[in-house]
């Protein structure tokens, strides 16, 4: 009887941990229209983890460009850029990508990035939530 109870407990724990993956939502994603001669451009938006457990952003990809997560950090009036990897988004938290902070660094740009109001698909891969695809507009915005 005792063994059955322990087995049931372990089973429920495993089942709970499998189903308890984080939920990911994205909001306000946009990619800056690249100047005609530019090699790179940036993307901004918000990734929210609405689940009750942390999740890890493992990878980002995008058709027509190479992409990675960068973070601009200002120290003593000096801008440093860091390549961020395996970013953990805690439960009920958001990762805000905005100028002078976290951003998508896009390079090897195809023609679409030089066309205002086009859209591209950005694919985020999370440890628990899996693949999250986002349609992101190319916009001509000056902050």
């Amino acid at each position, binding site marked *: 009887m005792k063994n059955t109870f322990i087995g049931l407990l372990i089973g429920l724990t495993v089942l709970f941990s499998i189903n308890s993956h984080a939920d990911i939502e994205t909001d306000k994603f946009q990619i800056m229209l690249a100047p005609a001669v530019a090699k790179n451009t*940036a993307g901004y938006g918000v990734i929210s983890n609405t689940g009750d457990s942390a999740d890890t952003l493992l990878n980002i990809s995008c058709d027509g460009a190479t992409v990675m997560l960068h973070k601009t950090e200002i120290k003593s009036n000096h801008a440093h*850029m860091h390549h961020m990897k395996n970013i953990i988004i805690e439960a009920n938290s958001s990762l805000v990508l905005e100028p*002078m902070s976290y951003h998508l660094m896009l*390079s090897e740009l195809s023609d679409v990035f030089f066309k205002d109001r086009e859209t591209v698909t950005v694919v985020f891969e999370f440890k628990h939530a899996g693949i999250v695809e986002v349609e992101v507009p190319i916009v001509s915005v000056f902050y």
Partner: protein
Amino acid sequence: MLKNILAISVISLLLNVNIAVSGVVEMPILSGVGGDFTAVDSNGNTVEFNGYAGNVVVLAFGYTSCADICPFTLGYLKQLYNKLSSEEQQKVRMLFVTVDPDYDTPAHLKGFLGHFDDDFIGISGTKEQTDYIVSLYQAEYNQLSAIGMPTHNIRRVQPKLFEEETDTKEDTATLFSHSVSIYLVDKEGFTRSVEYTGTPKVEFRDKIKKLLRE
């Protein structure tokens, strides 16, 4: 009662004077920041900074392969510039000094800056000229990768080692860290204020207007 009213009036007067004094925009000459230099502008002309005398100059450092902070700064400067009247714009020069002169040729700078405003002037030159300008403004820049960073590595979360790659100039995007200050220089070439993109644009515009009136 009368004594109290008098006391309050005196305090109010003092406070008003204080507010008036604190409302004054002081823009002293920042000794040791800025000075004359020789470089090449985005039209390919050799220029001397003193040649801009008679104009108010707004000067920033950056490079065109920068994806975040430089386009953001130039967007800020575009909006700042648009807050000036066309008459005022004719007396203001917006300079963007590249820290990557190897890649940012005058023609390339012209194409990049034209995305923001055709009036913006790119400043390029030799590495020695760049280093000299940077030192004049007590700014800094550092190349983040010893060699050009292969852009096809950027896709990977864990990039290959740089030395595993065969670089060509066309395939690389050299990355830099650099100062983010924006320098405001008066019509005589003296640096009068150091701002950044966090400065409210109206406040920055008013400083430009003040220098234009001098």
